[in-house]
Structure formats: structure tokens, C-alpha cells
């Protein structure tokens, strides 16, 4: 069964003469549990696609279906609840809440959902992310990589059905990158989570089940790995 389906998705910016087509009539679907890598040149429309899949942007045309529901037909609140339960979004530029500490940022989606924080899972996450001695720090006291790791933790805390990651290892050294990817993969296998990762790192792309290549807002290649 496809957990995620994208249909004729188009996103344009600006008005006619200066119009930028960031995403141009893209369609594909992802079955549950798949690990997909999205690659492409800078400015090709990867982040735009990811944001649309995560329900944080609005398409100019087309639809996004997650677990059978057309997410852009949902009302504001339903979409918000859907996001915090089903989708873990890791931004290219972290987007942490500046006034909340590491722990507070990570547990925010869980707590917004009114659920109890699974302390042992949190501990485990913090350990894997290498943040256990930074629990009470604020984002502006962290390095770029550390901030990125916090945003990964935040996306994973609720064990969402889908994790959408925009260059999650863009700021990390190879060892840390390795650990993060292992974490994502482990989570992908253990909880049967669907994983969509944008990456410029060929090694990571090669570990995915499937690689989608984007160029000028269009899918130019969509192939299964190995």
C-alpha cells in the first residue's frame, strides 16, 4: 500500500514575466516503509517538494495524499495534528524555537499532542544524537551540526509514520553523518517508518531503496536501488 502519493504537484513563485516554476507537474508514490533519496542540483526544487509533502507549504496545483487522505483538503487543525503525529520534518535550516532548550525543542511535538514523554526513548535519542550533555542549552548556544541534530531528534520523537529530511547531514562530519543515517535507517526498519531524505551525499543516496532525481522542478530519473 502506498503511504504517500503525489499527483501533478506544481509550485510556482511570482507573477508571469518573472514566474519561477520551482516544481513542475510532479507525480509519484511511495509505499510504506520505503527509504527514498531525493537528489538534484541546488535550486532544482527538492526542498519545495519536501515542504509540500510535509504539508507546510501550499501547492499551486496538484495533490498530496498521505495514508489515503488528501492533506490539502484537511482543515488547519486537522493538518496540524496530522503533521505532529504522522510527519517528522527535518529542515535544511533547522528552524528550532530559540527560546526553548534542546530537551524542550525535542519533546515539543509529543507534548503538544498531550502525550507523556517517553523518557527512555528520549534518553536513547539524545545519546545517539550526542546531545546528552547539551540538554539544557538554548539553540543559539549550539553549533550548526548540533542544531541540526536537535531538529532530527524533534522529528523522530513522536515516531512518525513518515520522516522527511532535508539534507540531515549537511553540516556533519562523516562519522556523525554515519551515525545519523544509521539512526534513521534503524528507525526505518524497527518502526517500519517511511523515510524520504534529500541529500547531496552519494554514499547516503546509495543506501536508499530508491533514488529520485530532480532537475528544474521535474523528475528526470526514478530508479530502485540494488
Amino acid at each position: 500500500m502506498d503511504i504517500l502519493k503525489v499527483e501533478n504537484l506544481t509550485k510556482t513563485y511570482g507573477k508571469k514575466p518573472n514566474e519561477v516554476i520551482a516544481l513542475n507537474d510532479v507525480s509519484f508514490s511511495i509505499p510504506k516503509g520505503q527509504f527514498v533519496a531525493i537528489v538534484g542540483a541546488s535550486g532544482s526544487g527538492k526542498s519545495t517538494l519536501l515542504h509540500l509533502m510535509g504539508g507546510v507549504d501550499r501547492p499551486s496545483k496538484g495533490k498530496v495524499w498521505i495514508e489515503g487522505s488528501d492533506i490539502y483538503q484537511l482543515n488547519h487543525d486537522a493538518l496540524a495534528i496530522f503533521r505532529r503525529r504522522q510527519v517528522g520534518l527535518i529542515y535544511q535550516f533547522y528552524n528550532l524555537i530559540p527560546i526553548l532548550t534542546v530537551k524542550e525543542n525535542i519533546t515539543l511535538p509529543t507534548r503538544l499532542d498531550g502525550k507523556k514523554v517517553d523518557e527512555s526513548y528520549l534518553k536513547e535519542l539524545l545519546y545517539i544524537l550526542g546531545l546528552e550533555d547539551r540538554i539544557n542549552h538554548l539553540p543559539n548556544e549550539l553549533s550548526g551540526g548540533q542544531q541540526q541534530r536537535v531538529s532530527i531528534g524533534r522529528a523522530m520523537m513522536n515516531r512518525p509514520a513518515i520522516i522527511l529530511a532535508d539534507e540531515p547531514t549537511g553540516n556533519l562530519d562523516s562519522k556523525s553523518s554515519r551515525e545519523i543515517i544509521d539512526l534513521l535507517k534503524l528507525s526505518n526498519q524497527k518502526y517500519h517508518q517511511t523515510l524520504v531524505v534529500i541529500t547531496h551525499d552519494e554514499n547516503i543516496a546509495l543506501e536508499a531503496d530508491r533514488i529520485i532525481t530532480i532537475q528544474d522542478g521535474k523528475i528526470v530519473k526514478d530508479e530502485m536501488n540494488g
Partner: protein
Amino acid sequence: MKMLNEITIKNMKKNRKRSIVTILGISLSVALICAVTTFVSSFQTSMVNRVKAKEGDYHMTISSVTNEQLQYLKENVQVEKIGISQTIGYAKTEELKNEDKPYLSIEALDEMDIQSKGITLTQGRLPQNDQEIVIPEHTLQNGEAKWKVGDTLTLPVGERTIEGENLNQHNPYLDGKDDDSLETFTAKETKTYQIVGIMERPSFENYSAPGYTAITKWEKPLAGKTTSVTLSLKKPKEVYSFVKDIEKNLGILGENIDTHDSLLAQEGIFKSDRTNETIAVLALIVIAIIIFTSAFVIRNSFTISLTEKTRELGMLASIGATAKQIRNSILWEGVILGVISVPLGFFLGILAIGIVLMIVNSIIQGGGTPLVDHFDLTLVVSWQAIAVSAILSAIMIFISSLRPAIRASKIAPIDAIRENKDINIKNRKKLKTSQWLGRIFGVEGEIASKNFKRSKRKYRTTIFSIFLSIILFISMNSVVDNVFGFSSLEFQDRKYNLTVNLYEKTEEYAQQLTEQAKQTEGVKQVALEKRKSVIIDPSKYYTPEAIEQKGISLKNYGEQSNTVGENLQIVSLGNDVYQSYLKEVGISVEEAKGKAVLYDTNIYYQQEEGKDGSKRVSYEILNLEKGDTMTYETTATGEQDQAVTTGKKEITIAGRADKPPMGALYSGYNIAVLIVSDQMMKELGDYTLSKMIIECDNTAKVKEELYKIDTGLKEDIFDYDEQNQSEQSMVLIISIFLYGFIAVISVIGVTNVFNTITTNMALRNREFAILKSIGMTQKEFRKMIHFESLLYGTKALVFGLPIGVLLSYGIYKVTTNIYETPYRFPWGPIAISIVFVFAIIFITMRYSMKKTEGLNTIDTIRQENN
């Protein structure tokens, strides 16, 4: 340099919201000063013009001036203008039918004097030579003369004497009736005048004057006639010292000098230094509060974007801009902001007042006869005040805009970029939000309160602006309250306007009249006042102040003495009025049942050593409080016409009232009154019908209706509207002024709060978008915002109320110098502040929330600055 300036302008355009807020903030502050000063100067000018038109435009009159004195005054450098008049004398004529006013009093006035005295023609023209005359219109009305313009009068002119003494306009007509002696009129010459005009009754003619003032032109000095002058000084401030000077230097008697006190008071000059001082201090406080507020409004409008600005400057610094370059670019920005917002502020402030004055004018002038005579509100802009506010704004803009530069230059560029200084991490450990907060408001509440504690600056700015509005409102209210309390002593704000005397009338008759009055259109309230006079023992029930004031010797009282005691009035007013009075003074019907409400606010004038003028002090006569019981005696007239007591009774006090009951003019009379219900009055027995008191729109109509029942009532009716038109006008003017003032202040306060909150919210759009993107629902978001509103409001009130009260107490203290009443705690303004603060915060927050709700999440996140 050039390039940086361009960047600055680009930045301002890009951060349009922020620029607009800053411009609005500066404009508001300029508008505040501009509006207040324009309002005050417009009112003052109109009041001065009103007095000039009604009473004449001069600073003093001096009578019985000799030629040498006149010469000296004419040459005096302090004198601006001088008008000369001479009294020709009295003319007796059969044409005048008024028994108390059988004369024309003929005065010759020179051109300047005619102008100064505010002679207002109703017909014809002014006299152009000493053969022409203008007569007042009341010669035709209560004088019943048949004169008209163009008539020629030939009159015997002479003087009035009694026992060889000359009499003047200040001596009423002595007609020999009653025990008066009879004055003599001696004709000295015969004069012929042509009537060329008719004028309004000149204000300098007092009501008891025996002659109607007629005015002819003064052409040359006339021998043997007394000369008077009206004069104005170049500097009105010097009037009272000038009076002392001429008394000393010219030997002019003090009684011959009459300063135009009402005009001088309107110009802000008072006879008593004490009043002068008080008004100066009060004005100083008001000015200080307004300047302080407006300075902080400007500072605030910069502070709100301080973080963003610092970051921007850090960015500039990081790519190599020098401190000097940065400073220059900031000054450049300040200049642009000032050039746009200062004129805008003037415009807004003057526009606002223009509109207010227009509305007030249309209310006053609307519907035929003006509510207030001779009162035309015109917009008068005080350019000095505008210059001061422009300079002040420039300084504030300069200081405020340099702040981010100084901040940015003190920290490393990267810290500025990362906003390290603005997110407070010191109290990280202590930040355990209390349990109940968590329980009531959940995570949303927690985020809100963390934001509140860790992102202090922006919160402080918002809270500060609410805080300023609160203290501005409370303290200005207190100024108004004190000024009003002060002026309402002079002009009692009487609610009723018609009374009908009912002594010696039967109760059925009174009842019938009351019903008739109640049914008349435009009647709001009718009270039927019954009175009972009782005697109490002052040694038991009088306060020490009352004993001193009334000069009572306590030796006369006590068990052995047979002196009866002091008088006390018990009144009842009819059921309706009684009920509404209870409501007004906050005593419930149950509390008052079988008891009496005590109104007991009295004034005496106290002279103090070393200070001129007297101070009004309020005091209470009875030492009774709620629940106290008092023994009284009733009296009857005994056989030998002396009072004999007819027994002792008791009465209990239901409470003290701070407002007089309808129909009471007691405060001036220094007596205490007990107010009871009709039923209780019946039970007490032995009362007298006193009067019917009516509050209505149109007294003429009510009188007409009442005459239908009994034409004989003419003697018993007293029409306050007729009597006190000018007094009522004053109350109206003062109310309009004071409430207008409060309205202006409130509008500016509200706008400021609105401005600050919407900006703060707009600057946090990105943060909100992130929260939403990780799944915060609209409902939760609202909850968070509501909780924040609650925090804002509470915090601002916690600081604002005590300081506002403190200021109000200070203002009260200043006014007690001339006028002493017990301090009235500003409960009203406090309640209004609380309600308004929360209402405004919630409405504003909702408004800005609505705006963020429409935004595209990812677009907002991507726009780092907006």
C-alpha cells in the same frame, strides 16, 4: 558611505512593517504632545475670548483718576492700552417705569474704552460725538421705555445725594420706603442726545445699580466730572504688582482699582500666589508625565525591533562595515524616520483635536440657541509647544536609534547575528514553570511563560507600553478629578432645575402637583421633600472640627444644662428618588431599612500663616459612622413662644453618603442631613412639607403645566435654569474640557498599546510558523496567545496600578494646597484600567493572530526578517 545609506533605505523598505511601526510610534508621541497642547490652548483662547466678549477686554479699571494720574498712566511703559471715560451724571425721566431704577446713568467713553468694555450693539451704531447716545436694551424691557433709534432725548442731568454725600452706581436707589432714607436728585444742566444705537446690558452695570447705563462718546476732558480708565498691561502677569505700584506711587486708593479677575484667571493669572503655585505645579506634573510618556513611546517603538536591528548591524559589521559607517547609516535612518513621522504626528494630533472641537462646537451651537453663550471653540495651535515637541522627538529619535549601534558595537558580530543577548539563559535552571500553570494551560501556557521569561526584551517593551498607558490614564484621571472637585465647589453640579415651595400647602395638593409634574414630558425626576427638624446634643455627636467651626461652647451642654442643643434636619424625598439615591451612594434597601443615610460634607475656609488666599478644607459635622445610634429630641413651641422638648427618640445611621441628595444645597451651608424613606418619615411623624424638586429638560414647559393647576404658584417656583444659565454653562464647558482631555489621552494610550503588540506579534511570525509546522493546532496556538495576553496584562497592571495610584496621590497632595478634601482612592479609573487593559490586549492579540493565521507556513519560516 553612500552605499550604506542606500542599504539603509532598502532595508527600511524591506522591513516595511518595522519601519511603519517606528514611524507610527514617533508620530503618536508627537501627536500626544501636539494634541494636548492644542486642546488646552484652544480651550483657553476660547474661554479668554468668551470673557472678553461678555465682560470686556481689559485688565483693570481705575475710577476717580486725576489729570496727573491719567498722564502718568498714559506714559507708563507697562501699559499696553488705556481707555478713558467720564461720568456725565444721572438723568431722571418719566419714561423709565422701573421703581428701583428710575435713572439713566450717562457715561462718556472714548473709542478705546468702548472697545475694551465689550459694548455689544443689538441695533444701530456706536456714538460718534457727544451729542449721540446708545441705550441698553433693558431700558425697553424692564424699564418699559418707548425709545427707538433716531429718537431725540432732552434730559435733566445731575447728581444723586443723600445728606450732602454723592451717590453712584454702587449705591442702590434709596426710595424712602421701609426704613430707607430718601435720596435727592438735583438737576445741574439739561442735555440733548440722539439715540443712535441699542446695546446689550453692559456687564459693568451691577444688578442693583439705580441707573441704566447710557453711553455717549468722550471727546475732550470735561471739568468737574469724575474720570475712570480701563487699562491693559503688556504683560498680564504684572497686573497685581502693578496695582501695588500705583497705589504706592500715585496714591490711588485700593478701593478705586478693580482688577478684571475673571479674565486674568482665564489667562492663568491668579490673585493668590497659592493658587498660582498650585496650578504651576499641577501643569508641571502634567507636562512631565506627557513628555515622559511620549519620550518612552519613541524609545519603545525602536526597542521593539532592537533585536532584529542589532542582528542586521552585526551582519553589516561581519562583512566589514566600520563602527563609524554603521553609526552614520543609523543616523541617516533616524533622519528619514524623523522627517516622515514628526510632521505626520503634528498632522494627526491637530487633526484629532480639530475633529474633537468640531464635534464639541456642533453640540454647543446645535439647535438654535447655543448651550453656552459667547463660546466659540476655534483651533489654536501653540507653536512653542510644537517646536518643543519637535526638538524633543529629534533627541529621542537620535538616542533611541543609536542604541542598537552601541549594542552591536559592544558584542561580537556573530553574537549579534545569533541574538545571544536577547535570549536570556541565565535563569535556565530556575525555569521550572509552576505546576498549576502546566495543568491549566498545558504546554501552550508553558511555552508562553518561557517566552515571557527568556525573551525578556520584547515582552518588557510591550508591558512597558501598557504600563505607561495605565499610569497616564490613572494620573490624568486624578488631575481631572481634582480639578473637577475643585471647580464643582464653585459651580455646584446641580441635577435639578426647578423647585416649588410647599410650606403651608396640604399634602393632597402636593401629591396632585407631583403627579402633574411627573406626567409632563421631559421630566426626569420629581422629589417631594419633607423635613423634620430635630435637636441633638453637640457634645456627644459633633466632631471637634464642627465644634470649633461653629463656635459652640460645650459648657452649655450636658445633663444638668437646659440648653436644648443643635439643629439637625431629617428629610425624605419620595420613594423613587430615595431608591435611586440609595443606589447612587451604594447602600442597599435592606441596609437602609428603618435607618437614616447621612450626608455630611462641609467646607470651611482656612487662613494659614505666611500664605495668602485661603484654603478650602472639608470636614464632617457628626462623628457618627455606619451602625451608630443617636438620640435626638423634638421640640414644639411652648406657651411663652420658647422651644420646649417633647421627648427623646433614637435613630440609627445606615451609612455615610458621598453625594448630596436631590434638592440639597447643603454643602455650602455647613449642616448635616439625614435622609430617610417616606414611610419612615411618616413613622417619625410631625414633619413639614418643604418643597417639590424637579429635574427636567425644559423648565418653561413644566412651569406652564403647573400653572394650569394653580396660577398662584408663580411666587413659589424657583427656576434654576433661568437663574444660573452661565453657571451651568461653566459646568458644561469644564466637563467637555476634562472628558475631552481624558478621551484624547486614552485614544493615544490605546493606539500605543495596539501598535506595540501588533509589532511584537508580527516579529514573531517565524516562530509561530515553526510551531505550526511541527503540528501546533490553531486552537492550541490561540490558547498560547491568550495565556500570553493574560501574562502581559497582569504584569503591566501589577506595576502600573501602584505607580498610577502613587502619582494620583501626589497630584492630590499638590491640589490640597488650595483645596482640601479627603483623598479619593481612584477605584473607578483602576477598574476601567483593568477591564480595558485586558480587553485591548485580547482584541489586539486576536487581531494579530488572525493575521498570522492566513500566512503560508513555509514562506513565513523562510522570511527571516519581516
